[in-house]
């Protein structure tokens, strides 16, 4: 066993440390700076600098702190997803929080802390590190969900999310402790080795696997543990919903990849059927429930549930294509989904909540560019070429076919086809209904920038995905 702490290990976590430092500063500056939007800009600067540090580490591949934290292409890929998601979420928050009259400095600090937690989750190859990263992210997110203090829905959402989240963390922890009991180590590699020495049907490893999976399905909002999602997504400030739906989700999937593909990989024959059932249920129920929603936030919440179902296909395939698909899909989903949420944020005005599908009626006449961008994002979510979403879906379906999971592939593509129905309810409302009111969207520089970036990548990855596929592939080929 290598020495637990070496001085160069500090270098491995500079991006994270830098985020923490900026978060702390923000809390202090909050007392000094009256214009809270400046704090948002400081947070953006913090993320940018963290990104620079991350960029400097791009070619490294080593494990720090005696092998509890890996700095490999996989974690770097995911960390860049988190940073992008955090930056774009902050950019759409600047104006939004003003409208909600809840612009406070700790909001930005909390996002930075949550992002830091995620970055540790993506790098963790050890149960304890993983759990601490997870909780850092989760606690920051619980607060952010309830950030609209005077809003009952927000409070309720936060409470629900906190209770269920704590419960799921408990289950997860239970599974982790069983694994520790089995292997005597918290490191994923040791756990895998210990598990492979036990018989496949060993009841205790089964128990550990099931509780661990349940906890993780909770975190990624897979059916049957998805009930919290619509409520939390609906009640949370829209900018935080956007952040949760991409960053928190991506972090949970990063954690899942490490656990399922390394730690409990020896139990793959056992978890495969569970995963397949969960995947099928998640996409089907997510899609069907989304059809009946009239609130866009709830609809997109259910849509994000179904997307989690698609991503699980990558785990079921488990080969190079499948594992490439997971980060690739999440990367694409980050831009697409953040773009869609940004449009909804733009719909929030002084006296209009802008969450009902009817609130989007005739959006095209009032604000053609907003409606066209939303159309692009929705097409991407539905997986219609030439948008990025198609490339992501293509990769998942390809993985399923390549590994002979034909029935699963058929169910998945039929679900993808169904999803067009509810995405296009929004399109119908935007393009084919009369405008109900005359007020335009609220555009702010941050929102415009987010929309521009999201659109650019959604279309670029759709037309020329080569470099992005190569990056995602590199992230998993070396790691697993």
């Amino acid at each position: 066993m290598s020495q637990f702490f070496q001085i160069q290990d500090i270098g491995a976590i500079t991006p994270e440390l830098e985020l923490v430092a900026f978060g702390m500063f923000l809390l202090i500056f909050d007392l000094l700076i009256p214009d809270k939007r400046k704090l948002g800009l400081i947070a953006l600067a913090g993320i940018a600098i963290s990104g620079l540090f991350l960029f400097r580490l791009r070619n490294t591949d080593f494990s720090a702190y005696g092998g509890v934290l890996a700095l490999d292409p996989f974690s770097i890929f995911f960390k860049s997803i988190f940073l992008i998601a955090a930056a774009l979420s902050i950019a759409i928050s600047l104006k939004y929080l003003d409208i909600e009259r809840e612009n406070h400095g700790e909001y930005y600090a909390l996002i930075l802390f949550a992002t830091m937690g995620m970055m540790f989750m993506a790098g963790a190859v050890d149960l304890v590190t993983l759990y601490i990263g997870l909780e850092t992210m989760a606690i920051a997110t619980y607060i952010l969900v309830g950030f609209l203090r005077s809003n009952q829905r927000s409070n309720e959402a936060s409470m629900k999310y906190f209770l269920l989240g704590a419960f799921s963390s408990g289950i997860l922890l239970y599974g982790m402790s069983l694994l520790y009991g089995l292997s005597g180590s918290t490191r994923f590699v040791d756990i895998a080795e210990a598990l492979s020495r036990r018989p496949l049907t060993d009841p205790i490893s089964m128990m550990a696997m099931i509780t661990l999976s349940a906890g993780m399905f909770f975190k990624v909002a897979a059916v049957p543990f998805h009930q919290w999602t619509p409520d939390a997504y609906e009640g949370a400030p829209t900018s935080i919903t956007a952040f949760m739906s991409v960053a928190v989700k991506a972090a949970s999937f990063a954690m899942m990849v490490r656990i399922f593909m390394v730690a409990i990989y020896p139990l793959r024959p056992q978890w495969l059927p569970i995963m397949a059932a969960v995947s099928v249920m998640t996409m089907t129920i997510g899609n069907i429930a989304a059809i009946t929603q009239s609130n866009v936030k709830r609809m997109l919440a259910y849509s994000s549930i179904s997307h989690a179902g698609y991503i699980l296909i990558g785990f079921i395939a488990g080969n190079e294509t499948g594992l490439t698909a997971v980060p690739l899909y999440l990367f694409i989903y980050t831009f697409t989904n953040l773009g869609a949420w940004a449009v909804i944020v733009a719909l929030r005005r002084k006296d209009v909540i802008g969450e009902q599908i009817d609130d989007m009626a005739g959006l095209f006449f009032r604000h053609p560019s907003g409606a066209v961008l939303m159309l692009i994002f929705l097409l991407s979510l539905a997986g219609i070429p030439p948008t990025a979403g198609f490339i992501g879906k293509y990769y998942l379906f390809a993985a399923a076919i390549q590994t002979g999971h034909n029935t699963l592939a058929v169910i998945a593509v039929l679900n993808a086809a169904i999803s067009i129905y509810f995405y296009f309810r929004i399109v119908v409302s935007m393009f084919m209904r009369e405008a109900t009111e005359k007020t335009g969207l609220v555009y702010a520089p941050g929102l415009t920038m987010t929309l521009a970036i999201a659109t650019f990548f959604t279309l670029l990855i759709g037309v020329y995905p080569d470099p992005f596929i190569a990056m995602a592939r590199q992230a998993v080929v070396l790691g697993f």
Partner: protein
Amino acid sequence: MDYFREHILTIVAFWPLAGMIVLMLFNKENKTLIRWWANFVMIVGFVISIPLWVWFDRDTADQMQFVQNIPWIQTIGANYHVGIDGISLLLVMLTTLLGPLAVLSSWEAIHDRVKEYYVFMLMLQAGMLGVFVSLDFFLFYVFWEVMLVPMYFIIGVWGGPRKLYAAIKFFLYTLFGSVLLLLGILALYFIYPNLAAQHPEVAGRFGTGATFDVLAFQAVASYLPFTYQYWIFLAFFVGFAIKVPMFPFHTWLPDAHVEAPTAGSVILAAVLLKMGTYGFLRFSLPILPDGTKYFVPFMIGLSIIAIIYGALVAMMQPDMKKLVAYSSVSHMGFVTLGMFALNPNGLNGSIIQQINHGISTGALFLIVGIIYERRHTREIAQFGGLSNVMPMYAVVFLIMTLSSIGLPLLNGFIGEFTIIMGALQQNLWWAVAAGAGIVLGAAYMLWLYQRTMLGKIENPANEKLIDMNLRELATLVPLIIVAFWIGLYPAPFFRVLDKPVNNLVLKVRPDYFQGTQRLNAEIREPR
């Protein structure tokens, strides 16, 4: 000029897209400029496609010509690979011909949201051309799906009373088919490297790497295990049959046609449906020969049902547009019948009939649209005796009716006759069923003509109808010319088709031209 010649397919396919981008910059209030520009783009699109017809080398019509093959997504082996053989040449020409006519026909019909309308029309045109020129399955699929969106909007925004229902039904139906098609493509994609590795002659030409190259897939066709052929054929079948549409999948078509604006119906009938039959010709038959042969009885059965059922339903329609829509189902039944006869006559007829259907049905939708613009109804019972007030209209309508029912001297006859010859070579009863379909087709079309055009004017609303104006005539004259051209002198078309069709037959039935059957083929060949 050399540059143009080398890149002609790309230029033809992307020209409408370039025109669309320029169109987006126009002020949406300046409707006249937008209309002129859209028409200009479409006409130029047709003009630049004429060199395809001229430069196309008939002696190697079975080879892909004007090929461009550029790496695109190297990580998955997808290329920008375009090229046409005789079959796709005709369909590309049909598309570039119908595009300007459809756009011209909407000059007065579309008042609202003019700019978006033309944006979507141009986008649709580019998507359809892309489908016909793609030789890379990935590229093909992208174009195949891309054109759903503009068509959805054309039906959903400018359509009739039930437009939203019709539009989403069209979209969902087609999408269900296409995603299964995608799975079929993926299955081929993953088995190709294995097959190529075992067969050096394929590996030598196309390599053993992962590829979406349609020609590579065709090269390994005969080594593809039957189970694969079976399942992939079914996946392709759902994708293409919904588009055609073949019998049990046809229900989206009447809705889409009835609700779509005239130009939408024209494009839908004339070009979009051909994408399905083209899919069968380009992919199912040559890539999955054993699967194709296995499913022949099934496909023929569905085709015959479509012919008879479509005709019977058409006969009972009170709405002119719905009648023409159901007649499409029947006519497309002929196309698939000829195709799955799997002999040169059947296939030649099938492809000619695709062009014919594009011409006649496209024209019939234009004709229905002309009367709809004047009366805002399409109910047959509202009309009668129109030939008294609209003589020119009556003549054009008559020509197209006759063309549609397959009267000699007009295009429909050539297609149906060749298809029936092909069917007869295989099985007497197929030909009998097709013949019954022709009789029924004559019945409903002539009855329609009689009820709307002949007799005295009973309905006072029809007394003041004005005849076609120059613009409306201009949309129909090119179609009439082509109808007569194919009817009187189809040799140029057969000359383009013979080689690729024989090649196709050889791929599906390698022993076809041995022995006595060779005679059959040669009797028909006048050269």
